[in-house]
C-alpha cells in the first residue's frame, strides 16, 4: 500500500502587510447587513458568497468549488481610521520610546550602534540596545541624530499612548513608524514593518471558519466572530458618515475609540482593563484569541490532542487463562473494528470467505477498496464483491485472533500504560487480560475501563509488535527490574508449593501441572520443587536470597531454616523457596536478560497458573486469630507498656514542676511533646519486635514475609493491638 507522506519543512511566522491583506481578499466587505429579506446573502456583507460555501449544493463564487472542495476565501474591511493591533500594544509602546519623535531614528549614537554586529544580534544584546534607547526618551534627552528633544511617553492600558500631556493618535504613531529605517529595525529583531502593527484594513475570515448554524425553527444563528465583525462594520460606517458630514472632532474621536475597542476585542476578548464584548444573551463572545487559547482552545484540544478512529472502550475483567500477551475482545467489538489487508494470491481464498460472511457475522468484512474506490460490503452485494475480488485490492476485515491491538488505561502515566496485545475474540462483553499485567496499567477490576486501538498500517503493526508488545515491556525503564510477574496469591501459592515437605503422587502432580507442562515419564512421585523446576530452562544456574531472608550475620546457606537460600542448578531448584524475589524479582530478571522475552513471558504465564492451582489445593485463608500472640509475649508487652506509661507520668510531673530540660530550639511544651512521643514510639517499636519474635508461622505471616501482601509492621501492630489512628 502506498503511503502518502506530506512533508512540511518549516513554518515561517510573520505579520500581514495591508497590501497583502488586500491582495488575499476576494472581496471588500462594507455593509453590516448579512442577509436580505429573502434570506439571501448580501453582496459586500459578511456572508458574501465569494467568501466560500457553507451550504450544500451551492458553488463558490470565487473558485467554483462545492462544499468541502472550497476551503473558503478571505475578505477585508477597510477601516476609516487606523487602529492599534492589541496584541502588539506593548511593542508599539516600546518602539515609540526607542525611536526619535521627529526623525524616527533609533535613539542610539552611531558609535553605540557600531559595537554590535548588525547581521547577528543576540537576544541579550537586543535587550541592551532596547534599554539604552529607552533611557534617552525616558530622561527627555536629545536625539543623537537630529538633536530633537525627546519627551517621555506614557502607556495607558490597553491601547492608548500619551506624550507628555498630549494623546498620541494612531495616525501619528503610524506616521512615525513609517519613517523608521529598515536598518534600525534589524537591531531590534523586527522582521516586519512596524507600521503594520497599526491596522488600516483587517482581514475577514472565510465563512468556513465561522459557519452559521440553522436551528430547527429555521432561524439562523451566527458565529461569534461574525457578530464581532458586524459590530466593527457598524461603527466603521457610522464613523465614515460622521466624518463626511463634518461632525465635531470630539464625536469622531469617540467613534474612533469605539472602533478601536471592537477591533481589539475581535482579536482578543479577554483583555484586562476593558469590559469583554458580550453576546445578546450576556455571554462573552469567543473571538480569535479565545479560539486558540488554553485547554479548550485549538492548540491543546485539536492540534496537540487528536481524536482517533479504530478504537474501543469497555469494562475490563481478569482471565488467568490468557497469556500476558493477549487481550480478549468481545465479539460485539470485533464486529466494529477493522484492519486493512491487501489481497495477494496467498490469502485471496481466505479473504473471499470473509467477504461472504458480510459485515454482521464475525470474521467478516466492512469495506473493500478497489481501483474504482471504496465499496461497502452488505448482505445484498457480498456475493458479487467476493467474486470480483482481485489481487491488489484492500479488504477492511474484522479484527481476529492474532491481530495486534494497543491496550491502554488512563491515566497514561508511563509508556507501559500503552502496550500491544494479541487480540483474541471471545464471547461476552468485557475486555479481558491476564492479572499479571495489572501492575503496569495500575488496573483493578472494580469497574475500570480500558481502551483498545487497532493500528492500520503494516509498519505500525510491525512496530507495535516489536517494541510495544507486553513481553517486551516486562522490564521497567524506571528502575531496570521487572514490573510484571506473580503477585499476591501467586506468591503465597508458590511458597506453599516449593517449601519443604509434601510429595505429590503422579496423579496429584498432574492435577497441578496439566495443560501447563508435561510431567517427565517414569517418575512416580514429585516434590513441589521438582514441579516448579519443570518451568525453568535446563541450563539455568542461579543463587540468590529470597525475600524471606532474615539477613543473618552468618548465612547458613542450604541449611537455612527459612529456606531463603535459593539455589538453582542446571534448571533444578535444589534448595530454597520461590517468593516475590522469584516470581517478579531476581529470577525473572535473570530469565529476561539471558533467555529473552519469549521465555520470560512463558514463565510468567505458566508460573502464575501453577501457583494458583497450588494455592487452591492447599487452601489459604486468614482470620483475626492469626494475630494472636502467646501469653508469654503479651505479658512482656504489657510490662513494657506499663513502663512507658510510668515514664510519661514522670515527664508530665517534671513538666508541671518546671523541671523539664528543654530541647534547644523548642518551647517547654514542645519539648514535653517530643519527649513523650519519643518514649511511646520506643515502646511501640520494642513491642513490635517482641511481637515479631513470637508471631507464629501462619498464613498471615507467610504473606508478610514472602512479600505476597502486607508487611511485618502491619502484622505486629495488629498483634500488639495498636489502632491505626485512622490511617
Amino acid at each position, binding site marked *: 500500500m502506498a503511503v502518502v507522506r506530506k512533508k*512540511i519543512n518549516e513554518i*515561517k511566522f510573520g505579520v500581514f502587510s495591508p497590501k497583502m491583506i488586500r491582495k488575499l481578499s476576494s472581496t471588500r466587505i462594507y455593509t453590516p447587513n448579512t442577509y436580505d429579506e429573502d434570506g439571501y446573502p448580501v453582496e459586500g456583507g459578511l456572508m458574501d458568497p465569494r467568501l466560500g460555501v457553507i451550504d450544500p449544493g451551492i458553488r463558490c463564487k470565487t473558485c467554483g468549488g462545492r462544499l468541502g472542495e472550497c476551503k473558503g476565501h478571505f475578505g477585508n474591511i477597510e477601516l476609516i481610521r487606523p487602529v492599534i493591533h492589541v496584541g502588539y500594544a506593548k511593542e508599539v509602546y516600546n518602539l515609540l520610546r526607542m525611536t526619535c519623535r521627529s526623525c524616527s531614528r533609533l535613539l542610539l549614537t552611531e558609535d553605540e550602534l557600531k559595537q554590535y554586529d548588525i547581521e547577528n544580534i543576540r537576544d541579550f544584546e537586543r535587550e541592551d540596545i532596547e534599554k539604552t534607547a529607552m533611557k534617552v526618551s525616558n530622561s527627555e534627552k536629545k536625539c543623537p541624530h537630529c538633536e530633537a528633544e525627546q519627551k517621555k511617553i506614557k502607556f495607558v492600558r490597553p491601547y492608548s499612548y500619551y506624550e507628555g500631556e498630549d494623546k498620541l493618535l494612531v495616525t501619528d504613531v503610524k506616521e512615525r513608524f513609517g519613517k523608521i529605517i529598515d536598518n534600525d529595525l534589524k537591531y531590534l529583531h523586527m522582521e516586519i514593518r512596524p507600521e503594520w502593527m497599526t491596522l488600516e484594513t483587517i482581514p475577514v475570515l472565510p465563512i468556513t471558519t465561522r459557519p452559521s448554524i440553522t436551528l430547527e425553527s429555521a432561524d439562523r444563528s451566527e458565529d461569534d466572530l461574525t457578530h464581532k465583525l458586524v459590530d466593527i462594520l457598524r461603527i466603521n460606517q457610522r464613523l465614515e458618515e460622521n466624518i463626511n458630514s463634518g461632525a465635531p472632532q470630539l464625536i469622531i474621536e469617540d467613534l474612533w475609540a469605539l472602533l478601536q475597542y471592537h477591533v481589539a476585542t475581535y482579536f482578543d476578548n479577554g483583555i484586562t482593563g476593558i469590559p469583554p464584548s458580550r453576546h445578546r444573551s450576556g455571554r462573552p463572545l469567543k473571538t480569535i484569541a479565545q479560539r486558540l487559547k488554553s485547554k479548550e482552545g485549538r492548540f*491543546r484540544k485539536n*492540534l496537540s490532542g487528536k481524536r482517533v478512529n479504530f478504537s474501543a472502550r469497555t469494562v475490563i475483567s481478569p482471565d488467568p487463562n490468557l497469556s500476558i500477551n493477549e487481550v480478549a475482545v468481545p465479539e460485539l467489538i470485533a464486529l466494529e473494528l477493522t484492519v486493512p489487508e491487501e489481497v495477494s494470491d496467498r490469502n485471496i481464498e481466505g479473504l473471499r470467505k470473509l467477504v461472504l460472511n458480510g459485515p454482521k457475522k464475525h470474521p467478516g468484512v466492512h469495506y473493500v477498496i478497489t481501483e474504482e474506490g471504496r465499496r461497502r460490503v452488505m448482505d445484498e452485494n457480498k456475493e458479487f464483491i467476493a467474486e470480483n475480488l482481485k489481487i491488489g485490492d484492500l479488504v477492511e476485515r474484522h479484527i481476529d485472533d492474532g491481530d495486534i491491538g494497543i491496550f491502554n488505561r488512563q*491515566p497514561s*502515566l*508511563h509508556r507501559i500504560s500503552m502496550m500491544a496485545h494479541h487480540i483474541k475474540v471471545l464471547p461476552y462483553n468485557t475486555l479481558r487480560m491476564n492479572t499479571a499485567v495489572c501492575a503496569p496499567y495500575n488496573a483493578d477490576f472494580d469497574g475500570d475501563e480500558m481502551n483498545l486501538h487497532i493500528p492500520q498500517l503494516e509498519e505500525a503493526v510491525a512496530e507495535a509488535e516489536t517494541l510495544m508488545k507486553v513481553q517486551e515491556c516486562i522490564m521497567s525503564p524506571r528502575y531496570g527490574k521487572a514490573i510484571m510477574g506473580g503477585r499476591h496469591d501467586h506468591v503465597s501459592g508458590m511458597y506453599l508449593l516449593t517449601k519443604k515437605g509434601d510429595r505429590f503422587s503422579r496423579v496429584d502432580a498432574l492435577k497441578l501441572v496439566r495443560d501447563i507442562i508435561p510431567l517427565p515419564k517414569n517418575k512416580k512421585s514429585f516434590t513441589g520443587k521438582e514441579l516448579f523446576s519443570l518451568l525453568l530452562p535446563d541450563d539455568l544456574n542461579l543463587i540468590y536470597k529470597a525475600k524471606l531472608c532474615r539477613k543473618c550475620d552468618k548465612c547458613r546457606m542450604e541449611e537455612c531454616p527459612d529456606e531463603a537460600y535459593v539455589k538453582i542448578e542446571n534448571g533444578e531448584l535444589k534448595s530454597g523457596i520461590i517468593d516475590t524475589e522469584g516470581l517478579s524479582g531476581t529470577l525473572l530478571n535473570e530469565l529476561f536478560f539471558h533467555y529473552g522475552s519469549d521465555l520470560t513471558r512463558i514463565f510468567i504465564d505458566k508460573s502464575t497458573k501453577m501457583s494458583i492451582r497450588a494455592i487452591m489445593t492447599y487452601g489459604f485463608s486468614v482470620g483475626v486469630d492469626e494475630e494472636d500472640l502467646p501469653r508469654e509475649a503479651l505479658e512482656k508487652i504489657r510490662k513494657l507498656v506499663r513502663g512507658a506509661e510510668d515514664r510519661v507520668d514522670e515527664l508530665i510531673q517534671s513538666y508541671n514542676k518546671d523541671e523539664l530540660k528543654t530541647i534547644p*530550639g523548642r518551647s517547654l511544651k514542645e519539648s514535653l511533646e517530643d519527649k513523650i512521643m519519643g518514649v511511646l514510639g520506643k515502646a511501640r517499636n520494642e513491642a513490635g519486635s517482641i511481637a515479631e519474635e513470637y508471631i507464629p508461622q501462619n498464613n498471615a505471616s507467610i504473606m508478610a514475609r514472602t512479600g505476597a501482601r502486607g508487611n511485618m509492621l502491619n502484622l505486629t501492630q495488629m498483634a500488639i493491638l495498636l489502632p491505626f489512628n485512622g490511617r
Partner: protein
Amino acid sequence: MIERDIPESIADRLESMDKNKRKEFLDSYHKALVEPGEAVGTIAAQSIGEPGTQMTLRTFHYAGVVELSVPLGLPRLIEIIDARRNPKDPRMIIHLEKDIRKDEKKANEMAKKLLEVFLPDICDMKIDVKNNQLRIETNDEDIKKVLMKYTEDETGGDVYVIEKESLYDLKKIQNKLAKKRIRGVKGIKKVFIRKEGDEYVLYTNGSNMKVVYGMSGIDKKRIISNDIRQIYETFGVEAGRNIIVNEAVKVLEDQDLDVDIRHIMLVADQMTVTGEIQAVGRQGISGSKESVLARASFEETEKHILMAGLRGEVDTLDGVPENIIIGQPIPIGTGMVKLAIKSSLAPKKPIEGKKETAGENKVLDGKVSDVKKKIEKLDSADYKALIEAEKKGENRKTLLKWLESQID
C-alpha cells in the same frame, strides 16, 4: 565485538580481563546501552512523574524520633524541579574543624555564633503610652551600639528611651527595631547540636551558605545545605547539579520509591546545561524552547504566536509537539531514521504476484506520463493494440482512458 565505543574509564579494566569475562562484560554493557533515537527525556519524566502520583498520600510518620524532619514529599520534589529561589524549609548540616569537633563547649559556642538573634529576643521593649516613649532595657553591648543611632539619651545606662510625637511613629520604630539582627548569621533560625559518633555536628534551620562557608572553625569539606540556589551560587554549577540529584534522590528514597538515578541525573543535567540553574517549566526549560508551535501549545498561546510574527521566527519542526500539531511522523525512535534506497540498487525483478507487462510492448513500461510521451513520439501508434496490451498488463485506468481518447 565492537570495542571502540567503550568509555575510556573502563577501557583499562577491560584490558586486564580474560577473554571470557571480557565477552560477558561487553555483552551486558551493550545490552545496557540506550538505543539511538530512544526518547530518554520522556522516559525520565515519566519515571519521576509516575511515582509522584502515588507519593502524596502515602506518608506514614514514625513519630517520636527527636530529630529534624527534613522537608519531604511531593511539595519538596516540585520545589527542586522548579529550582525555587526560597525553599520552604532550608537546612544546613555543618561539621566542625578537626581540633574542635569533639569539644561540646566549642560546638555550643559555634552554634551561638551561627544563630541569628533579633533585638526583641534578648531585651525588653515596652511602649509607654502615657509619655509617648519607647523604653528598652538592656545590658548587651551589641544592642547598645544599634540603639545609639536612634536616641541621644545616653544617661540611662541600661535603659534607653526613645521619644516620638505620636504613638504611630513609636510603633513604626518598634517594628523596625524588632527586625534588627544583633548577632548570628542571617537566615539561620535554629541550631541543633547532635552527637554523631564522637563528634558534634550542627544542624540548622535556615541556610546561608555564603556566610557560613566563610566562617572559621568549620570543616569546609563537610558542609552542606539543601538550598540548591545557594549551593550553586557558592560552589558553581557542577555542585548545583549534584545537589539537585542528591536532594531528589533523598525525597524519592524516603518514600521507598524505586527510581533509577540516571533519570534524575538527566533532569539535573538538563536543568544546568546553560551554566546556570533553570527551572523546568514556563520560566525555564520549556519556555526557552526553539519551536514556536511547541511553546504555543504549552502555555501563553497568543503571546508566543504574536511575538513569532513580529520577529519573523521560523519553526523548523524538529521537535515532537510541532510534528504532532501538523500531523507528521515525530522525529523520535523509529520516526527518526531516514533511509532511502538508490533506484539503481532497487530490486529489478518484478515483485511476485504482479503480472508481467506484455513483452512486445515495452512502450507501456514506466509511469503513465512517460508512457504518454513515448506514444506521442511514435509515428503511427496502433492504439487498439496498445489498449489490449495495457488491459492484459497493468490495466491502468488513466492510461486506458487516454488511449481511447486518442483513437478518435
